[in-house]
């Protein structure tokens, strides 16, 4: 069971590496922000899995904080930071 959980955590980490491509090529700033939000969610999943396998319950609190920060970051981006469209959207 522990092996499976660690394998799933590693798989999620590989997903994040894949998602970095989106950040590199995304035509609008929103695409890059979506990647940051995905990192927040996937990071939450990885932390929760690690909390269970490593018997560190404090990591669940870290996961909660990460989820909350991703939410605040997304709202701040949409309301304040994203003012002009850089580059053409195809």
């Amino acid at each position: 069971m522990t092996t499976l959980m660690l394998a799933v955590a590693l798989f999620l980490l590989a997903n994040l590496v894949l998602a970095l491509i989106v950040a590199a090529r995304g035509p609008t700033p929103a695409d890059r922000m979506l990647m940051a939000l995905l990192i927040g969610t996937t990071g939450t999943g990885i932390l929760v899995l690690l909390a269970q396998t490593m018997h560190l319950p404090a990591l669940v609190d870290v996961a909660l904080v990460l989820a909350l920060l991703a939410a605040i970051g997304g709202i701040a981006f949409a309301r304040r930071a994203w003012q002009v469209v850089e580059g053409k959207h195809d």
Partner: protein
Amino acid sequence: MIEWLSMALLLVGAFFFFAGTVGLLRFPDVYSRLHALAKADNLGLGCVLFGLALQAESLAAALKLLLIWPLVMAASASIGFAIARRAHRLGIAPWRKGGQ
């Protein structure tokens, strides 16, 4: 029995995270990418959290794990709305089949 259920939920969650990542890579515009991100947020994380809560040591630990899920769902719903509205205001046209 609970072991198998938890294992299956973890695998389903991993699948939805993968689907969200692939959608973020392949979908053509911001609006459809928001849709892909919501899959990873709601279903992927939800299934992983349910799978882990099934094998938590105490009820309190399981409830704490399950508490993350409504938070992430509410956050992803409001973020999706805010970003889509902003993109619409900035004049980004939704993607149409066969080009503009």
